[in-house]
């Protein structure tokens, strides 16, 4: 191992913060031991840099300038009057403000039969055996820096359980809000277990009320039980100053159906990680997302999918629109072990570059050990098609409007897969806002 010679300011802040906070973070001695192990790994290696393959295009050590202090309590009054990120939906909003679940701001009325919601902090304090077991992740995932930092510093989150056969009709929306100045860090973990044959739509919004350099780290674990159907959509909406690390860990059981969509619309530095695994045969999953970047923003989507069971089908589609000097990264790895025959996977990523300085990096990887599989991947990268643009212009449509129409069309293929109408509309509204800002 190569020792990191000099600690960066962010690494120094990490090294100072953890020993000072470890015993005041929620959890029993067992939890502290889990936190210590996670932090120890990061402390030994330092933050990952471009020579670490998984972080090659997102050099966290170079890009993470600081690691601000833990967030204090949020001003409830400001959160109460803030406009919701998704309007007009019927979702059950559960609010996590400055890293803490706030039941008094959340909609807990008439919980559907089979749906239970409680605080992770409470479970950690109680040493809940089931929750503690769920904190244990596969070594490869646990060692990931964003995951390890989440484990070390997590303050709260939600433990959501949908009982076997329960169909939760109302979407559940996890509303993450950062409030206040100066910049602060939050680490939140959610554990979502959807039982056999159950149904759940889970929406996550991540936003900040202040344009300061907040750092948020949200890790969501979803267990999709046998024959269950789960739809997960995340809107990542922080201001340009912010750093956003999100991780989805999904385990998809036999005959289950799982879809996840990530809209990377905010934060100057964003990384959305997905670690997913087919754990039972005949399951289906869709992994999709859009990224919209301008200025000097940097957004990374890193997907690792283990097609670990027979006859499972997956579709991956990630689209990025990049303007200014921004940079979009997509790394997608699909592993098919020898026993996972009849695997069917199609991974596609496409980037639309709107300026000379915009950059897209795409790294699709397939590791296939089974012999009876259909796996494909494709990556495209290009500018707006001149012929399409000319056709629209020739009908009197201005250049910016024509470009907006073509950008929206480009993203539409991914966005139109979102089943929840309110979220779909909220996303289109955000995309149109981005296009208007670009045209201005």
């Amino acid at each position: 191992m190569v020792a990191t010679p000099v600690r960066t300011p962010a690494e120094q802040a990490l090294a100072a913060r953890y020993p000072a906070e470890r015993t005041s973070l929620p959890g029993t001695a067992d939890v502290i031991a889990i936190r210590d192990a996670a932090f120890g790994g990061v402390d030994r290696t330092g933050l990952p840099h471009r020579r670490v393959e998984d972080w090659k295009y997102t050099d966290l050590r170079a890009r993470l300038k600081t690691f601000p202090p833990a967030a204090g309590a949020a001003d409830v009054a400001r959160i109460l009057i803030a406009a919701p990120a998704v309007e007009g939906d019927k979702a059950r909003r559960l609010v996590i403000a400055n890293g803490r679940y706030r039941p008094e701001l959340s909609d807990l009325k008439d919980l559907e039969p089979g749906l239970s919601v409680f605080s992770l902090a409470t479970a950690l304090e109680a040493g809940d055996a089931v929750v503690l077991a769920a904190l244990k992740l596969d070594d490869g995932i646990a060692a990931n820096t964003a995951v390890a930092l989440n484990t070390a510093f997590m303050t709260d989150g939600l433990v959501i359980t949908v009982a076997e056969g329960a169909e939760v009709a109302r979407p559940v929306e996890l509303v993450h809000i950062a409030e206040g100045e100066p910049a602060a860090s939050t680490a939140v973990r959610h554990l979502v277990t959807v039982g056999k044959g159950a149904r759940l739509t889970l929406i996550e919004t991540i936003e900040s009320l202040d344009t300061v350099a907040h750092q948020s780290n949200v890790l969501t674990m979803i267990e999709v039980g046998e024959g269950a159907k789960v739809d997960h959509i995340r809107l990542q909406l922080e201001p340009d100053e912010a750093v956003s690390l999100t991780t989805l860990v999904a385990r998809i059981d036999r005959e289950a159906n799982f879809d996840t969509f990530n809209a990377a619309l905010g934060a100057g530095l964003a990384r959305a990680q997905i670690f997913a695994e087919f754990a039972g045969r005949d399951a289906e999953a869709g992994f999709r997302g859009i990224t919209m970047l301008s200025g000097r923003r940097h957004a990374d989507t890193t997907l690792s999918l283990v097609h670990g069971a027979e006859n499972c089908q997956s579709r991956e589609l990630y689209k990025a629109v990049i303007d200014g000097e921004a940079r979009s990264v997509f790394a997608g790895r699909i592993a098919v072990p020898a026993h996972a025959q009849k695997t069917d996977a199609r991974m596609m990523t496409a980037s639309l570059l709107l300026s000379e300085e915009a950059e897209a990096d795409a790294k699709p990887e397939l590791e296939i050990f089974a012999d009876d599989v259909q796996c494909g991947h494709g990556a495209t990268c290009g500018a707006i098609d001149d012929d399409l643009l000319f056709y629209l212009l020739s009908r009197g449509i201005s250049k910016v409007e024509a470009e907006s129409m073509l950008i929206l069309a480009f993203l539409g293929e991914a966005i139109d897969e979102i089943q929840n109408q309110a979220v779909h509309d909220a996303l289109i509204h955000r995309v149109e806002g981005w296009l208007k800002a670009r045209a201005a």
Partner: protein
Amino acid sequence: MLEIKNLHARIGDREILKGLTLTVNPGEVHAIMGPNGAGKSTLSYILAGKEDYEVTEGEVLLNGESILDLEPNERSVAGLFLAFQYPIEIPGVATMTFLKAALNAHRKAKGQDELTTPEFMKLVKGVSEKLNITSEMLRRPVNVGFSGGEKKRAEIMQMALLQPSICILDETDSGLDIDALKVVAEGVNALRSPDRAFVVITHYQRLLDHIVPDIVHVLSDGRIVRTGGPELALDLEKNGYAAYVADAAA
């Protein structure tokens, strides 16, 4: 209305138009015929403002104003319309969204308010029905999944909606069967008026049976080499372009 004076243009190092001069007055229908490679499509693209071509000499005036420095959308709202030889398919852009954006851009340029949705729907319905364009076609993305004939009819529909003063029809007959040709020609004829002019670019005389021109030009090697009445088209149909190609080469 449209004056093209000594127009020279090239793409890369290849000179395609070599001193083309043409005057089109309001109410007239001009046909431009010529062999492959004469520069017919180049002329239509240059008039519409496609970037790939470089005008090296000459000028193009629309209602007395030079248009060569205008962007394609500015030319459109100034009253120029190009019906494409190969209309472009635009996946993901709904036909109605496209038509509305185009119409409103024209209205905005004229200082008019945007149309309300019911006004717009009524307008499109009126125009599309005459061209046998079904509501199912209008629900599709722009030109996607349209047959060759449907695409050409859709071009004429756009023309009818935008009410241009000068219409350039680039080989609108290519890829059309005889029935579709009649529908397209009727659509064009319905738009003929004393204050609107047409330039019909075609290989074949067939289209001109249905859209009868006032003046026929022969374009060969980047220049108009002969101008005459409708009888010129019949002569070309019978004798071919060989004589003009030889003239131009001489």
